[in-house]
């Protein structure tokens, strides 16, 4: 049903992505919350912070606990005690210098990211540009 065959047409568009050696910080409350979230999986799992499209400001943060990747060459790794936190090289410019905090409030609580690269961010704290 597709419009184009698999070959013979224009190549996909690509953009040059800048990769920087990122720095990253976390507050004591964030570190405690990470330990609580990871439990006893710290040897086999990592916490990954990434950027996705969406939200009212264009980009959204995503945090996931995933199995430690076999190939770490595309990631930058940060150690907080037993906890390994990863960001992908392609997100390094947008996440460079972030500070992860944790707020224990009923509304709008959870992990919060302060990002010095964000020109503006949404009130929910999850979207930025």
């Amino acid at each position: 049903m597709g419009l184009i065959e698999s070959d013979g047409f224009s190549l996909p568009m690509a953009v040059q992505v800048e990769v920087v050696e990122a720095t990253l910080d976390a507050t004591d409350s964030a570190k405690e919350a990470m330990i609580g979230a990871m439990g006893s999986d710290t040897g086999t799992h990592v916490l990954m912070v990434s950027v996705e499209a969406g939200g009212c400001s264009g980009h959204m943060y995503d945090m996931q606990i995933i199995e430690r990747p076999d190939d770490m060459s595309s990631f930058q790794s940060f150690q907080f005690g037993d906890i390994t936190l990863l960001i992908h090289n392609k997100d390094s410019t947008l996440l460079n210098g972030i500070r992860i905090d944790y707020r224990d409030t009923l509304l709008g609580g959870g992990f919060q990211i302060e990002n010095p690269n964000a020109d503006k961010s949404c009130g929910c704290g999850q979207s930025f540009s």
Partner: protein
Amino acid sequence: MRSHYVRSGDISVLIGDDSRSLLHSVSTQHLEDLSEGETQTCCILDANGRIEDRLLVWNLGDQIALTHMMGRAASTRELLVRSRSWKQNVDVIPLDEGFSLLFREIEGDHVINHVEQKGSVHSTIVRSLETLEMVYLGPSQDIEILSKDFIEQGSNLRDSIDEDLYRIKRGHLTSSGLEQHRPIPLEVALDSDISFTKGCYIGQEMIARLDARGALARTSVTVETDTEIPPGSQSLAGGGRIIVMSSVEGNDSWWSACLVHPDVAHVGSSLHTKQLEGTSVELNIRNRWKPSSD
């Protein structure tokens, strides 16, 4: 007499499992659930809720075709590529040559937003305000053959000026109008391009606020004048302003797509531009455009 319009280029194809998800995250519509064989119109907005591009999205199964209705393919493609996460599997392929679109008004009851395929040409029926249109998408040589068939059946091929006049008379946003003024979709009755339940997207705050208040500062009207009125903002006699988005000469008069305050947007009434160097233009409001559900 029936007429049709042919336009080439301004088509993109997205390939990859995350195509709908990526489109969903940057557009005004709920596209994550767009089924195979269905189409949907939507907008790409800026942070102030103003239209950057208007898309007709075709789910063709393993590919998603985008037809950039306002001729602003380049900026939308760049947005998509820059928004794509490293986790997403999506390729954005520009089709600026070799493929064309044909638009033809139809009458009667039809199933809208459903894709049909005949040979290499896909078609769908879309509703824009009071107009039902068959949109054909396919290789340029096949669209040209289709166009010749329609001409033989008595259809008139519109040129770009005829096309603007056709759109302005029906209250449709035109590319030239969008170049002059970037309206908010609700100002130009494009409510059907918006999902009010999908959650956040760029420009959503403005749309949600306007929707919640239920009061627009401007609404779109089609205006007929004896003389040309330049695009841009004009002062009205008696106060207020009119924004002329696009203007085209018809047979005996000029037709313009404009935005005015809803309080003065009465069909059949006349407005006058503020007298400047002894002249004032009489603006006859021929239509006021509201979403078809109103």
